[in-house]
């Protein structure tokens, strides 16, 4: 597993991709951090009880990150398997003494490291701010934890899309589309709000309404960001942790099955 991990890290670090990510991201993060701090100052005028940590940490790590990660994880995930399939090198890897799980974990860990380093690089801003005021560190830590969990989930989705296609581009588009669908769940909720199990309709419509309601319920429950909120308030909810881990496990298992399918498909 570590051989694959080291190879992937090497590939990340030697290609300009990781560096561009880190630089652009940190510049944007710095700007967002500053803006949010200004906003906190403004809010303080009207409301002296406003929470600094929640506004700045929650705002910078919450709202701002969401958008960037939506763009970033498909780009990080797309090459993991699609590139190997494109070049044919996957065939060779399967004849090395490595199991499918070692391949999958080696690859996802490398992508997690790249994003993890990115998260770690945002920490100095908080430490710097902490010198001048008291921050509620638990909220910051749980937000980071939430991010790591969300990243595991999204990268698992990315690695799966990368395993099902030979083209990196298709992999990126597919995972971006799926993420958007889950991400925008909150936006779309009002559309389906009236579709519940107890809607009064003639009996022959019932099955359709139930199906629709089931879909609405699943759509709401599956929304990736919905489960993130509690972390931003300093709460570690077992439910949410389990949600992200099972989300990741599900897609990693699909990836495993896809890699294994060569055994009967050729």
């Amino acid at each position, binding site marked *: 597993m570590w*051989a694959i991990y*080291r190879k992937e890290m*090497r590939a990340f670090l030697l290609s300009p991709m990781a560096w561009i990510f880190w630089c652009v991201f940190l510049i944007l993060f710095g700007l967002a951090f500053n803006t949010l701090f200004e906003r906190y100052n403004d809010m303080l005028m009207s409301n002296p009880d406003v929470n600094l940590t929640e506004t700045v940490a929650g705002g910078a790590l919450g709202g701002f990150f969401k958008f960037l990660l939506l763009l970033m994880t498909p780009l990080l995930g797309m090459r993991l398997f699609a590139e190997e399939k494109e070049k044919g*090198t996957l065939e*060779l890897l399967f*004849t090395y*003494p*490595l199991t499918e799980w070692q391949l999958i974990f080696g690859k996802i860990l490398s992508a997690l490291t790249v994003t993890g380093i990115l998260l770690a690089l945002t920490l100095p801003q908080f430490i710097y701010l902490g010198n001048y005021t008291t921050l509620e560190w638990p909220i910051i830590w749980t937000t980071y934890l939430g991010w790591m969990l969300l990243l595991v989930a999204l990268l698992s989705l990315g690695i799966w899309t990368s395993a099902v296609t030979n083209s990196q581009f298709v992999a990126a588009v597919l995972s971006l589309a799926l993420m958007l669908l889950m991400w925008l769940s909150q936006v779309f909720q009002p559309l389906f709000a009236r579709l519940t199990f107890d809607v009064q309709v003639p009996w022959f419509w019932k099955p359709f309404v139930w199906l629709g309601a089931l879909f609405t319920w699943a759509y709401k429950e599956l929304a990736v960001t919905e489960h993130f909120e509690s972390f931003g308030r300093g709460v570690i909810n077992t439910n949410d942790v389990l949600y992200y881990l099972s989300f990741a496990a599900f897609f990693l298992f699909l990836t495993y099955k896809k890699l294994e399918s060569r055994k009967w498909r050729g």
Partner: protein
Amino acid sequence: MIVVEGLTKVFNDVPVVKDLSFTVEQGEILGFLGPNGAGKTTTMRILTSYFPPTEGRATVAGFDVVQDSIEVRKRVGYMPENVPLYTDMTVRSYLSFVADAKSVPAREQKKRVGEVMDECSLSERADDQIGTLSKGFRQRVGLAQAIVSRPQVLVLDEPTVGLDPRQIVEIRNLITRLGEKNTVIFSSHILSEVSKVCSRVIIIAGGRIRAIDTPENLESLVRKTVQIVVTVQGGPREKVVETVRAIKGVERVSVEESEGSPHLRLLIEANREDEVRAPIAAKIVHAQWLLLELHQRATSLEDVFMDLTAKDPAEQAETTNAIGEVK
């Protein structure tokens, strides 16, 4: 070292390899010969644990390719056809990665990569990106990655395909050298290559084994009979054929028809032991016909191959189909 029993692989209900059985001894170089789509690559992929067989079993160094697949992979070095490589890595970093992935102990890796690059004459290009290398060098990188873990068994799929004659000789010499220590299976559809390097040859076509023997024995297999071509002028057709057929050692006589020609061209199959050329000439001359031509056709491994890989049309369609589906 390698035992294969009743190996069958079916893709989408189409058998690509059917009931293959053979063994390879330690230190042997086995040639795997067959036309394209014969099932060579499929067999090799089973032996390298890439995928399991549908039926039958195969063991490498005593380990089952399905149950002990990791143990098998530790002992096998595989070089696929048109070696897929990470074109953005340098030769050295790529080979280090392979050594790492094949669990070569960390402190030996550097030394081992150096040795292997020397053996494959890659040292001067060690720090070049693989993408910038020529086909011949890439092929050597492919071979180097196969031997970097010092495997007991080497499986090489068409190692000389696409190389120029000088590079072919180089790779061939390298394989011969490797065969001194390792067990090697290598596939090819070029006969001369196999007969030069291998101690034993398997001829495979349509997913089935058509022959297993040493190159010499395979050649003598056809050499039991020789083909002689005779052209005669002036004799009545039936009479000439009858006369020739009566000679001891002649097994079959066929007439090559040519409309309107005054010549009679005969294709004679005769036993190698009996030298039939002299009696044929004598009889024809004795009958006062004109003997225009008499020569013996050369036979070679080429003939064995053509003979053994000739398939009936139904089977041909079946294999073509299988290849289409798999690719």
